[in-house]
């Protein structure tokens, strides 16, 4: 029997002498804010900007940054974690975050990194069955301004937990002994409750706390190879922050009588699931409006069981903060079959356009299309044009004849590919190989929107075409780390992966595996189950449990299947020309790209390639997806890959760019690649930047950078001192 509360209390008590010094009591304090030098939300503020006005660290001193403290997360679970994705919060001199294979919560002294308390909530088999494991993206903070300060997070097993921010102890009056069982009320089909232990639902992202309300999204299994299309239905709910009582529910798959239900033809709403909201939710507190970025319905690459446009799959939905009632919506991708999701936080900005003040919501995407709307009415700021896209021919599939494409701003990455002009050409041989490789894939049509964007999956076959090439679907463009913005100028800063060039193919899964006739795969190749990153890493996963899961979910490989051979690379290099990754500034006052630069060192694999010796290759940037931090003068982002160069030993750099020009103005060394989105705060007269690193052989670690104390003392500006 699991007794999570007891365990939590014991751990906290052991550290008890430390928490007496934390926090305030009784007196009314101003709400936490980036303007006070704090970082009270995952994205800094509720508006998704990742902006802080602090400027002690600037272009002139960035290279002087040194490690102020570091916190290794290895012991926050039964084994180390190698994919630490958290972004901490900092309120009142204390840093709060999640970490480790149990998704423990820690409070650290923001100046020294000293551990103040730790909370753990062992969930046993329920955690082990979670579709979204890993330590998560972080947590949320609430205060009544008079000493009732709370930390809120969602466990891997989908419980909403409220902790006393001073002690780490559960708030007994919240839910049941500090926990709300989020699986209660979650359904599949026409309303059947999912199993509370094994039912499929979870969440990586943080809850969103606004006023006295907690908003919580939902996430299901990786949707490329699943056993049924009739899985858990996505939903967003709001809870009272004091009691944990449910305030409202928004169904992302509308029920009969609700707007959008008729976009599920043949009553298919009743037998389809997913359409969760797995990434960050943003809020306009003054307007009382919530912006929900909804992901794909089941399954990712085949929608033959859900004919129609499938609202609110891959739609931006605006709902009322008090009631959860839909105000407006815009579907970014009709009848989704590419796994574009909506993968990052919508960004809210107030911008003057053509002399008129506008309230905007801007939605970055994996496609590197930035969709910009009036956030009150949902009207596009610049026309978004329904554009004809090519049909497909997978048996039973339903295709939307058009997809919406923003006329402005232009894509901030690579929405399509000019073939062969944008294929690798470091040497003539490499270009020839790439052109040959392309013969194994389906592509074509006019650049860019009917070529490699919205190129529908095919039934791939090892003896013929292996897939339909897509650029920027599953892992392209901007992913969960998201973009940022400067609310004072109306400029959005977004990193984008430019080299995610993936063939999309479906094939019949092994007999008896699924009720979906086509799933990700290639005819003649072994069937491969696609699971979310971190699946199986939860602290309480053990071999016996996994053996059961394996037996239930791992289908047999068909007889005669041949190992896969990849044709979408050339000599181990990306088949597309650099840049592989870019950082862009998009000016929403004009709807124009302001600047764009490659982000990240040229990868070792290019610099050291035996066939490229003597060839000068300009900085390529790196593929992968990383978050940005925006300050008064800088845009800061870490490298997604480790490199070893003449300038630095094996490691990755955290880079600072001039916001106006995109010029790189500084870089500091990190022992591993960035794996979480950076944040900043100021306490004790010193600005800190905290970033999560992990990957390869480097287990999760939060590293805090700051200027050497004398340099920090000599600088005065930016942010209220804590």
């Amino acid at each position, binding site marked *: 029997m699991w007794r999570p509360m007891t365990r939590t209390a014991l751990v906290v008590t052991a550290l008890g002498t430390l928490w007496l010094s934390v926090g305030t009591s009784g007196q009314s304090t101003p709400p936490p804010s980036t303007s006070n030098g704090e970082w009270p939300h995952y994205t800094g503020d509720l508006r998704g900007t990742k902006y802080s006005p602090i400027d002690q660290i600037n272009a002139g001193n960035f290279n002087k940054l040194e490690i102020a403290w570091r916190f290794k997360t290895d012991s926050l679970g039964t*084994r*180390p974690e*190698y994919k630490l994705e958290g972004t901490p919060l900092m309120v009142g001199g204390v840093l709060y975050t999640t970490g480790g294979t149990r998704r423990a919560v820690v409070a650290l002294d923001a100046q020294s990194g000293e551990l103040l308390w730790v909370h753990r909530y062992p969930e046993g088999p329920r955690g082990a069955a979670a579709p979204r494991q890993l330590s998560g993206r972080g947590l949320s903070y609430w205060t009544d301004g008079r000493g009732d300060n709370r930390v809120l997070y969602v466990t891997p097993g989908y419980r909403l937990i409220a902790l006393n921010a001073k002690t780490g102890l559960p708030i007994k009056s919240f839910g049941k002994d500090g926990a709300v069982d989020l699986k209660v009320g979650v359904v599949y089909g026409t309303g059947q409750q999912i199993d509370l232990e094994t039912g499929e639902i979870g969440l990586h992202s943080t809850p969103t706390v606004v006023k006295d309300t907690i908003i919580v999204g939902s996430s299901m299994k*990786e949707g*490329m190879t699943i056993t049924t299309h009739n899985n858990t239905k996505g939903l967003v709910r709001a809870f009272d922050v004091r009691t944990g009582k449910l305030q409202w529910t928004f169904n992302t798959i509308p029920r009969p009588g609700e707007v959008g239900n008729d976009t599920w033809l043949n009553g298919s709403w009743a037998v389809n699931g997913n359409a969760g909201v797995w990434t960050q939710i943003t809020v306009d507190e003054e307007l009382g409006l919530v912006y929900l970025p909804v992901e794909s319905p089941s399954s990712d690459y085949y929608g033959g069981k859900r004919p129609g446009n499938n609202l609110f799959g891959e739609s931006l939905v605006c709902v009322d903060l008090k009631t959860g009632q839909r105000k407006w919506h815009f579907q970014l991708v009709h009848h989704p079959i590419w796994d574009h999701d909506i993968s990052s936080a919508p960004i809210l900005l107030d911008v003057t356009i053509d002399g008129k003040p506008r309230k905007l919501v801007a939605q970055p995407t994996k496609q590197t299309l930035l969709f910009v709307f009036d956030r009150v009415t949902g009207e596009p700021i610049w026309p978004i044009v329904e554009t004809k896209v090519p049909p497909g021919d997978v048996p039973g599939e339903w295709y939307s004849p058009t997809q919406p494409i923003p006329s402005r701003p232009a894509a901030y990455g690579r929405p399509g590919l000019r073939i062969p002009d944008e294929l690798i050409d470091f040497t003539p041989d490499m270009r020839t190989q790439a052109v040959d490789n392309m013969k194994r894939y389906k592509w074509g049509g006019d650049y860019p929107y009917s070529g490699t964007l919205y190129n529908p999956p095919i039934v791939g076959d090892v003896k013929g075409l292996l897939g339909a090439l897509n650029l920027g679907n*599953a*892992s392209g463009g901007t992913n969960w780390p998201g973009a940022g913005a400067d609310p004072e100028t109306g400029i959005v800063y977004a990193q984008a992966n430019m080299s995610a060039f*993936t063939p999309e193919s479906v094939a019949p899964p092994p007999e008896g595996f699924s009720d979906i006739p086509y799933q990700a795969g290639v005819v003649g*190749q*072994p069937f*491969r*189950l*696609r*699971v*979310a*990153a*971190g*699946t*199986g*890493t939860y602290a309480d*996963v*053990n*071999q016996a449990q*996994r*053996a059961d*899961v*394996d037996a239930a979910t*791992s289908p047999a490989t068909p007889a005669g299947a041949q*190992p*896969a*051979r*990849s044709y979408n*690379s050339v000599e*181990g*290099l990306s088949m597309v020309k650099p840049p592989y990754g870019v950082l862009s500034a998009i000016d929403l006052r004009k709807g124009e790209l302001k600047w764009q630069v490659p982000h990240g060192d040229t*990868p*070792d*694999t*290019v610099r*050291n*390639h*035996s066939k490229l010796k003597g060839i000068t290759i300009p900085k390529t940037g790196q593929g992968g997806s990383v978050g940005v931090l925006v300050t008064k003068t800088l845009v800061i982002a870490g490298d997604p*890959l*480790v*490199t*070893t160069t003449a300038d630095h*030993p*094996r490691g990755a750099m955290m880079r600072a760019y001039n916001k106006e020009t995109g010029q790189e103005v500084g870089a500091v060394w990190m022992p591993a690649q960035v794996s979480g989105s950076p944040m900043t705060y100021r306490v004790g007269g010193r600005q800190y930047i905290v970033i999560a690193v992990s*990957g*390869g*052989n480097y287990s999760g670690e939060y590293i805090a950078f700051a200027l050497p104390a004398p340099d920090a003392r000599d600088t005065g500006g930016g942010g209220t001192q804590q």
Partner: protein
Amino acid sequence: MKSVGRVLLFGPAACVVFAAVALAQSSGATVWDGVFTEEQVKRGSASYQRECSNCHGAALEGGDMTPPLVGGGFTSNWNDLTLGDLSERIRLTMPLDSPGKLSRQQNVDVIAFILKTNAWPSGTTELPPEVGTLKQIKIQATK
């Protein structure tokens, strides 16, 4: 293979261990020095296909959520580290769904298979399972 000559005085079992230890202890041992055998690759290939290929792919190409174990994607993560680092990463965390499932011998056989697939040369002595020895063999993308 600078030190192999020294093992001739010993029995076969001792030879294998001694040769690898001697090799690793010689300065600058790398994956270019023929640190595994073809026989080991065969065993490693079978273990790999059974325990690893579901996520990392039959051709080690990786997946949407899984790093490749071949080519630039692999050397980017592991260049300048040691086979001991790789071995420990596998021991502690792989397979993801049941870490520690592979025996030490299976672990090192899988590494031999990965090295072979990355076109590093095989040799006449097996890669030994001792982490201390593996820690002295560097992964280097270029010779």
